């Protein structure tokens, strides 16, 4: 089984040893859960419950809205204390609407959707329905509603499902633990997904710094000829979809296309496990494994936490903090979000909570670019970070766009390696944001223009009809028709 080289990449200090030997342990049910309505990319879910109401475990408390959205469920039975604004686990620290649930300790299940008796022969739409109802989103951190990706097989001929077990972010070990402790569930979930996608093959890529996971998954996959488990080199960002597909198949996804366009759909291993639960048992996504780590955490561990659990409860479960951390991060250190405080809830995309000390972050004042070329050599996308940053510094967004800034993964490799500590990714995120806004404005403008043109056409047609009618009348009366010019284009709004 041949592997293919991917360009660039880095080898950050992995620091997975802090938590990798800690078996998944369940968090004792906290006194309050705060379940955000918006835990995924796409439109926020619509509230279904009100304060004072009693809810049961697994009961839908908010409904997905629109094509890209996901519902939220009660992680346990209890009372809705309120629906209020809470600090969301985002850099902004802005408040978002959450359902505050006080558990009653009874763990009383709501009636769940009927699971599929034999999902591997079932109609794919039935699987997708269960996945949609279960509110499953990509659990690697991107939180993209999974059902949308399961639809990709309906228009395309897919060859394979690629399961991302690379877990290339330093510190994180939650996927590793899931693969070691529940390989059967992950592989079953993967087979169900492959069936739903119409993909005959499943390839599971695991970075070879996880020998136990590789072993457990290989053993479990042995029974299924269509499932292959393959070690991939330890090379950040191996977990990037396009790069993982390239490493496993040698196929390079063309710019502006999806991996699905070259026959592969990528899902995360934890997502596969959640899909197994949803399809086999009708269980919604109400808990997840979170790695709590970093040297500022007394006892790093892998915790099975209900969605909505306060991060403080997770930290306490790890024996608290040692000193004042230099950084709090949700996710991995390369692409994670800075946390405004510990007083935020766990969401479906929370793969890790890291409390890092100053030595670990290695933060330093940025200096001038010395043109060392490191960033160019390591960018997995073949971009030229130093030049893009130079353009952005002078607010030349078009220049940066021409160099491909929008194709940047924000993987952080360039910032990580830059000896001058230039926050390159920060520049690119800024530029991407600005370019997106500009693009949105442009499409809006164009839409307005089309509408205006349609309006003018209508007027012209009406005028022509009127003129024709007048002409018809005139021929009978013998006077020339009054030439009526359509009025000049009305000014476009906005």
């Amino acid at each position, binding site marked *: 089984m041949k592997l293919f080289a991917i360009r660039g990449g880095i080898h950050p200090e992995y620091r997975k040893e802090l938590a990798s030997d800690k078996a998944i342990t369940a968090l004792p049910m906290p006194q309050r859960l705060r379940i955000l309505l918006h835990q995924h990319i796409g439109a926020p879910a619509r509230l279904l419950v009100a304060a004072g109401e009693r809810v049961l475990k697994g009961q839908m408390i908010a409904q997905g809205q629109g094509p890209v959205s996901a519902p939220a469920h009660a992680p346990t039975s209890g009372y809705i204390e309120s629906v209020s604004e809470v600090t969301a686990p985002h850099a902004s620290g802005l408040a978002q609407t959450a359902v505050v649930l006080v558990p009653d300790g009874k763990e009383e299940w709501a009636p769940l959707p009927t699971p599929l008796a034999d999902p591997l022969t079932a109609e794919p739409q039935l699987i997708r329905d269960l996945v949609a109802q279960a509110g499953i989103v990509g659990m690697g951190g991107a939180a993209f509603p999974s059902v949308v990706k399961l639809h990709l097989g309906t228009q395309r001929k897919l060859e394979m499902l690629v399961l991302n077990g690379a877990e290339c972010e330093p510190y994180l070990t939650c996927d590793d633990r899931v693969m070691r402790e529940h390989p059967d569930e992950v592989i079953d979930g993967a087979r169900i997904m492959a069936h739903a996608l119409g993909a005959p093959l499943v390839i599971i890529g695991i970075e070879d710094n996880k020998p136990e996971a590789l072993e457990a998954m290989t053993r479990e996959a042995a029974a299924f000829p269509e499932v292959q488990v393959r070690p991939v080199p330890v090379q950040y960002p191996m977990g990037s979809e396009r790069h993982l597909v390239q490493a496993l198949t040698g196929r390079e996804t063309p710019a502006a296309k999806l991996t699905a366009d070259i026959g592969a759909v990528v899902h995360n291993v934890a997502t596969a496990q959640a899909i197994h639960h949803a399809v086999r048992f009708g269980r919604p996504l109400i808990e997840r494994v979170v790695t709590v780590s970093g040297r500022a955490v007394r006892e790093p561990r892998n915790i099975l936490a209900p969605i909505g659990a306060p991060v403080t409860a997770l930290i306490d479960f790890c024996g608290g903090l040692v000193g004042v951390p230099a950084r709090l*991060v949700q996710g991995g250190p390369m692409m994670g979000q800075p946390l405004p405080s510990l007083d935020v809830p766990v969401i479906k995309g929370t793969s890790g909570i890291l409390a890092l000390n100053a030595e670990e972050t290695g933060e330093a004042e940025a200096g001038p670019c010395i043109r060392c070329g490191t960033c160019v050599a390591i960018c997995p996308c073949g971009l030229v970070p130093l030049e893009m940053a130079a353009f952005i510094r002078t607010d030349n967004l078009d220049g940066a766009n021409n160099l491909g800034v929008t194709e940047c993964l924000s993987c952080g490799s360039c910032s990580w390696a830059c000896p001058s500590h230039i926050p390159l990714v*920060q520049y690119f995120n800024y530029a991407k944001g600005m370019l997106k806004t500009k693009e949105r404005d442009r499409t809006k403008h164009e839409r307005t223009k089309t509408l205006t043109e349609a309006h003018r056409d209508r007027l012209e047609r009406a005028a022509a009809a009127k003129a024709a009618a007048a002409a018809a009348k005139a021929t009978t009366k013998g006077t020339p028709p009054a030439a009526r010019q359509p009025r000049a284009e009305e000014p476009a709004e906005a």
Partner: protein
Amino acid sequence: MMIETATTSAPYTHSAASVQKTMTTVILALVPATAFNLYLFGWPAVFLFAVTVGACAAMEGLALLISGRRLMPTLGDGSAVLTGWLLAMTLPPWAPWWTGLLGAVFAILLGKQIFGGLGQNLFNPAMVARVALLVSFPVAMTSWVAPHPLFWTGTPGFLEALAITFGGQIPDGYSAATALGLVKTGLSMGQTVSQSVGQLPDLMDMGLGLRAGSLGETSALLILAGGLFLIWKKVITWHVPAAMLGTLFVAATLGHLANPERFTDGTFQILSGAAFLGAFFIATDYVTSPVSKTGQLIFGFGVGLLTWIIRSFAGYPEGVAFAVLLMNSLTPIIDQYTRPRRFGRTRRGEPLAPQGDK
């Protein structure tokens, strides 16, 4: 501009790399060759070295003060010291003190700070200074001496050395010609290359550095050791040195085969002058050489070829400094044409064909 200097977005971890570390490693790599040559050329060389390095650091400080910037961390990054060090290594070992001082003005003020400081300059500051000194003070810059190791009899003592460096007079009987100079002068006097080469130290001594030459250039072996150390430390890659030395060697060999009486051979060319120092420490300067590996190959090729052309056809015996400066001016354009292929796109920037098999 809305970006703040504080890191407010990921990554929240960093490699151990820093500018200061890079500069320190380069300096460390220069130590063996420098120490050996300071020994070889005695006290006058030690004084000149100290003056040049000190003056460069002082100029950097001055420039920061004048422009109202903080002294630290810029002064502490080591780049000014490195520039001074490299400049010193290219000066005649017994050159007077003011060459070091003026060199610092040329290198740091005109070569670097005028462009905005570290990272902004188009030309290698040490080479700017060397060439500026060479064209302004051709005599002082081409007064060579034979090796006179420290503590040997017949070697200038401490006080005599002070007079040489700060008094500017090289006493009679010490001068010698460099190998390249000898060949050049020989050619101009109608001698053939083989006649001149007959008067030269043998190749072994050339490689070890037991010959007349610049303060830090003569020991190709120790410089090579430093260069390999830098490659091992991943501060530089093999691309520039290999392309430059390879091209110089091949060009010289071809020339020599075509006309042995007119052109010296490849081995002689790469062992003499600043070839090794240039290949590992000067042409590899981050700021003024291309950033991509392909660009670095082209750059090294250019420096090698130009060095040979200048040495063989121009009025100066030594060509590395001019060659580096000429190629520096091409760096932006080389960078522009050697950008990597973007993921999912062809070299020309079009998206790949949808069937992604390659």
